Each structure stands twice: as C-alpha cells, then as structure tokens.
C-alpha cells in the first residue's frame, strides 16, 4: 500500500474507522470484565474482522475453559451423587436440583395467587364492615401467609445491605481516624484484633438479648428478627473495611502529605481532597471483603435464630426431612453462591466507577 495506490484515501478512511471501532471495543472490554462478560470481547473482535485465529484462543480461554470445567463438575456430580445413600434417599443430582428449583418457582407463583386472594378477602371484609356501618374498623393488611422463595431471597438481600451499610458507616470513619493518628490506631487496634475473629454464632445470642431489651416495641419500623440479623452482620463485617481503610489512609504518599502542609489545608479538606481519594482503592477492597463476610454471616445467623431469609429456608427444609428437602437445600446453596458472586460484582463495579487506580 503506497501513496500511489489509487484506493489510498478510501483505505485510510476504512483503516481509521476500524481503529475507532477497536478502541471502542477495548473501552467496552473494561465494562465486560467488570460484569464478568470478558469473553464477549474476543467474539466481537472476531465479528469485527480481527484475525479469528488469535481471537479463538482468547475465546477458548475465557469461555471454553470455564464452560468445560462446569460441564465436568456437573458430570462428576451427576455420577457421584447417587452413590451416597442418606436416610432421605440418594444425594440429588443436577437434574433433581433443577426440578426443585422449578418447583420452588411454581410454588412462588401459587403463593402470589394466594396473596391476591387474600387481598380480595380483605377488601370484601372491609366492604362488609362499611356496609354494616363499622367503617372505622376498615384496614389494609399485608399477606399473612408463608413467604415464597423469592420473598426469602429479597429479605436476605435487604438484611445484608442494611447491616453492611451500618458497618461501613462505622468502619470507614473509624478507619480514617486510626490511619491518620498513630495513637488512635494504638487504641483501636487491640479491640479490633480481639473482636475480629469472633464467630457470628457467638454474637447472635448477645445481639438477640440486647435487641429484645432495647427495642421493646413490637410495631416499630423494623421487625426484631430483621434487626438481630442485620446487627449480627454489622458486627462481623465491620473489620475488613476498618482494617483496610486504616491501612489505606496510613500509607498515603509522604509527598502528598507534605504538599498538604505547604498548602495549609484544614483537616476536612485534607480528608476529602487527599486522604479519601488515595485510600479509596483499599477502602473498596475492604468493602468487598466485608460484604462477602456479611453475606456468609447472614445465612448462618438466619439459620440459628430462625430469622426470615434464605438461612431459615435451609433450616426449615432440614427440619422438614421430606424426600425433596435435600434438593431444595442445594437449590438454596446455589442461590446463596450466585447472589454472593453478584454482590461482589456490584462492589467491583462501584469500585471501577469511583477509583482511577489499576489496583483492583
């Protein structure tokens, strides 16, 4: 291709378009990685006319290998599971677990119908009260039946975020304090070291007693069980954020600190303009760890305290001991795993949005 080439202009324009396209693809790739869809990039690239051979290798590594691993896992599971006989029958294989997942969905649909019927009856009742001249007794009611599987999932997610937010609200300021002041660090450190390894199962009885004593009302904003689960999550998910924040704040570039002195920044500006931005990557690492810990803790707390959520679902099924219980528990295990993974992705995405560093 020389300047003498008659098609030079057209080719150059084509080349430029191509380059723009690939820049865009590479930009999108960052987001694909955040969302766990990294395998899309080589596929799009191949579709856009890049050397298919090179892309094929990437596709194989990013999509083929994981899919193959999952297939092998499913096959191993399907062949090995039936060999373990429990008193509830053989351990369910993938097919049985899938059937139960579908059953749980149908069950949720049925419960939604029941809920609609319930509302209808409440409306009828109210109408009759009005007709009978007792309009002051009319009231709207939320469904009193058993929660569906989706309700349980939603309860768990709400609880974990509530607990996690309280934990972050305590841990980040405390961490900044510990990072900025060596004496504050010396004061906080021993407490952190002692409480960090405490199991949620040990916190739970204490939290239950305290919440029952302090939160005496039965018709407050939150249900007691919700508060108990959420506070237990808080107590256990506090530490990774606290430690990482302290570490991030303490390890700010010395030059930056000197600059802040030269500029005579006040503490507030120093924290918002200097400390937070440079500690953010580590704070986010802490938050991701915390959310992961919180999610695990929540399920254990719900199981032990019989508080609504996925943990209670697992415990109830264990107690039911019906022939479908094991498969249902496994559905819950996968649900817990997948939601835990998604929560981590959400935090990862937030981190990518808020930090400029490559340190992920």
């Amino acid at each position, binding site marked *: 291709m020389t300047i003498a080439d008659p098609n030079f202009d057209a080719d150059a324009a084509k080349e430029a378009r191509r380059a723009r396209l690939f820049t865009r693809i590479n930009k999108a790739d960052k987001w694909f990685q955040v969302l766990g869809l990294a395998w899309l990039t080589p596929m799009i690239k191949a579709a856009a006319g890049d050397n298919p051979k090179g892309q094929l290798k990437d596709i194989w590594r990013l999509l083929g290998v994981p899919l193959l691993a999952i297939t092998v896992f499913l096959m191993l599971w399907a062949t090995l599971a039936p060999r373990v006989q429990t008193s509830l029958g053989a351990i369910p294989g993938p097919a049985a677990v899938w059937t139960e997942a579908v059953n749980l969905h149908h069950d949720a649909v049925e419960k939604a119908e029941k809920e609609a019927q319930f509302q209808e009856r409440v409306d009828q009742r109210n109408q009759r009260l009005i007709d009978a001249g007792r309009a002051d007794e009319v009231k709207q009611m939320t469904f009193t039946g*058993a929660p569906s599987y989706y309700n349980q999932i939603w309860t768990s997610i709400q609880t974990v975020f509530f607990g996690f937010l309280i934990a972050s609200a305590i841990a980040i300021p405390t961490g900044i304090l510990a990072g900025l002041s060596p004496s504050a660090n010396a004061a906080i450190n021993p407490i952190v070291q002692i409480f960090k390894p405490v199991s949620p199962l040990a916190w739970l009885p204490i939290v239950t007693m305290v919440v029952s004593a302090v939160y005496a009302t039965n018709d407050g904003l939150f249900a007691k069980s919700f508060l108990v689960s959420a506070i237990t999550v808080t107590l256990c998910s506090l530490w990774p954020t606290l430690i990482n924040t302290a570490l991030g704040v303490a390890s700010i570039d010395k030059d930056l600190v000197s600059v802040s002195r030269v500029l005579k920044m006040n503490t507030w500006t120093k924290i918002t303009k200097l400390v937070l931005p440079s500690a953010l990557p580590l704070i986010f690492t802490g938050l991701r760890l915390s959310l992961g810990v919180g999610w695990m803790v929540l399920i254990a707390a719900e199981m032990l305290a019989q508080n609504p959520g996925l943990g209670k679902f697992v415990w*109830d099924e264990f107690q*039911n001991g*019906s022939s479908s*219980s094991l498969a249902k528990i496994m559905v819950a295990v996968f649900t817990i795993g997948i939601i835990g993974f998604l929560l981590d992705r959400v935090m990862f995405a937030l981190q990518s949005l808020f930090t400029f560093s490559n340190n992920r």
Partner: protein
Amino acid sequence: MTRLSAILAATTLLATPAFADMLELETDELTFGFIKLTDMAPLAVAYEQGYFFDEGLFVTLEAQANWKVLLDGVIDGQLAGAHMLAGQPLAATIGYGTEAHIITPFSMDLNGNGITVSNEVWDMMKPHIPTMDDGRPQHPISAEALVPVIDQFAEEGKPFNMGMVFPVSTHNYELRYWLAAGGIEPGYYSADNITGQIAADVFLSVTPPPQMPSTLEAGTINGYCVGEPWNQQAVAKGIGVPVITDYELWRNNPEKVFGISAEFAEENPNTTLAITKALIRAAIWLDENDNANREEAVEILSRPEYVGADADVIAASMTGTFEYEPGDVREVPDFNVFFRYNATYPYYSDAVWYLTQMRRWGQITEAQPDSWYDEVARSVYKPEIYLEAARMLVDEGLANEADFPWDTDGYKAPTPPEDVIDGIAYDGRTPNAYLDSLPIGLKGDQIVVGNEIQG
C-alpha cells in the same frame, strides 16, 4: 361486573353468618408459634379454612426452632400464642424454668406420640417380646423387654441414652412412665441438679422434635419419645422402630395445649374468645364424619411451611393407622384425636396429671397438698373461656350443643386401671394418693438430696 361482585359478597355473607356479630376485637394482627408436629393441625386448619379470618383475625403462623424458643416468644410477646406442651404453661406459672403466668383456654389434642428405639436396640429387645400367632410382636410392648438391653449396655460400660423434647414435655413424662412401668429408673430432678439423670438407669436428654431421627441416626441417642410424624419418619427412613404409642400407654391421654400469656388474655378478652372459637371449629373439622377430612389435613400439613415431611409419612399416623416395623401397619383409629371425647376441653384433671408427674420426678421438689394441685390447675386451665367460645359457636349454628361438656366441674371421671399400661388408675381429685400408688417415683414427703432420695 358490579353485579358479579355483589353476588360474591352476598354468598360470602351467607357462608359466614359469624360475621354479623363479629366480636369487637382489641387486636387483630397476631403471630402464633408452632413446632413442626402433626398436632399443630388445628392451627394450620384454622388458617387454611379461613376460620381465623371469619373471626376477623389476621394470623401469621411461624415455625419455631425448639420448645424453649417458642416459650420465650410467648413470654416476651413476640408470639401472641403458641402450640405448646401441656407442661409448659403449668411449669412457667409455678416458676419451674422460666417464670411467667401462661394460661390455656384450649387443649389441642389427645394422644399422638410414640416411643421409638434404634434398629440395634430393637434387635436386642425382640427376643424378649412375646409374639402373636402370626409371628408379629404382641403389642403393647412393655419396657421390661428393654431391661436386658440396658443390662448389656451397662456390662459394656456404655450409657443408655434416650431423647425427649423438653424437660416439662409430655414426652419426658410418657417416656418415664413407660420405663418406670417396666421397672426401669429414668432418673430424678432436684433443686440443684436439673439434668433429670439422678440415679438413672436410662439417661434422658433434650432434642428438638424434628431433629430426633437425625440424632438417632447419628447414634447420640438409642431411642426417643416424640410426637408425629417423627416416629413414622424413623420407619420411613429405616433407622428405628416405634415400640409403643402413647395411646397404648394411656388411652386418650391429654396432649398439647394452646398457650397465651395471662396478660394477653386479660387485655384482649374478645380476641382470646375469637381465637378459641376458630380453634374449636378447626378441631371439629379435623374429626368430622369419622375423620373424613384427614386426607386433606395431611396435604395441608405436608406443605413446607407447616410440618413439611412427606405426605405419606404424615398420613401413616393421621389416618387411623400406625406403622410399627416396616410393613407392620396396625389400626389405631384414635391415634390422633382432635375433637371427639371432648379433646379440646381444658380439664383441670389433665393439668393435675402433669403436675403429679413433675412432683413424681422431683421437678416439684417438695410435697404439696391436694388443694395446691387444684389451685394451680385452675390458674392455668381456663374452661370458662372455652365454654363461652363454644356457646357462641352453638348460637351461630357452627357447632352442636351436644358436643360440649357444659356441666362438668373440670375433672374427668377417673381413668380406669385397664386404660393405663401398668394398670394404675388415675383420679385427678386425689393427686397425692395417686403419687403414692406409683411404684417408682417420689411420694409423700420424699425429697432428692444429692444423689439420694430421702424421707
């Protein structure tokens, strides 16, 4: 459309004549606790059949992890009421364990429990059990057949452990009754040793009902006494064999009660009446037309939010039969009684029996006069609420006048000797004389000091 809804409204009005004079409720949003057992059926039925709704009550039913959690829930007000062990309101009121004044306006059922032993123990017991002509073991099986097994365990230096569900549970007393009737010491309680294993041949400990089969399977216990479906579950899973039902131990013995705190009943008298009415209707439905509705009840109970066990396991005892060894299915039409024989009336004599057992095994540490038993029974069991609710149901045409014991003084006719496995009659009016007639257990002024019985 409006016409359709008008017709709908009209028909529902006809279907629920109760509405016209719906009680003025003090509170209508209630949460009731229950344990995963078939005898919670009146609660599930009252909910599913809309009986609570007819009374204007919005009820949520919540399964509880164990009897302790359930009792605490009722005491601290998280639960408005609960399916309870008959011993729980009594023990709480006299201050054994957690102290709180709990009352019961409604007795939930008769019978419904069984004693199961592990396959290993069953194989060891079997040679000592007389057989019938067809080769099957002869029921009822006495605990005497267990004596050689316990001896063998003792020789090998192993403890013989059995599970029951709560220190003041029917199951604790039934298991003790059966063991003592066979000449085995189940152990005593004292003021400073509440394990209940003082001087015991068999060591009893607490396991929540749904966990019984898995605890037996794990080998922690060698047998247990629990309500259904957890005996039939052991058969279905092939891990144990029920040896006796409580029906054979004591024909039509009183079982669970519905417990609410005295404070709740005082503050909410109309709500308490409404709850009782709904529960009586549920009990009637469960026993109607010779148990015609039991199949439907089994389907309701098998849902995961209630008992959750497989329907055929629940049906094994709920529909008038009981499966002992796998395949050995026998007729026990009265295994679960919810309404007939005045099952739901809270008799003082039932309360007194539980109190005698607490005294018998040392939970009540010192002798009490007969009048004390009567007083405690009257402060916990509230037949007056029951009768008021029943009267309203009769007036509304939802129950038959003849089905209720309007004129009783609260004491059942004495249980004749042939209705009890050890042939000892029971009369609730004379608890001390009854205690004296039992061969094993505290009597008179006896007290447990250290590891010995004195007096």
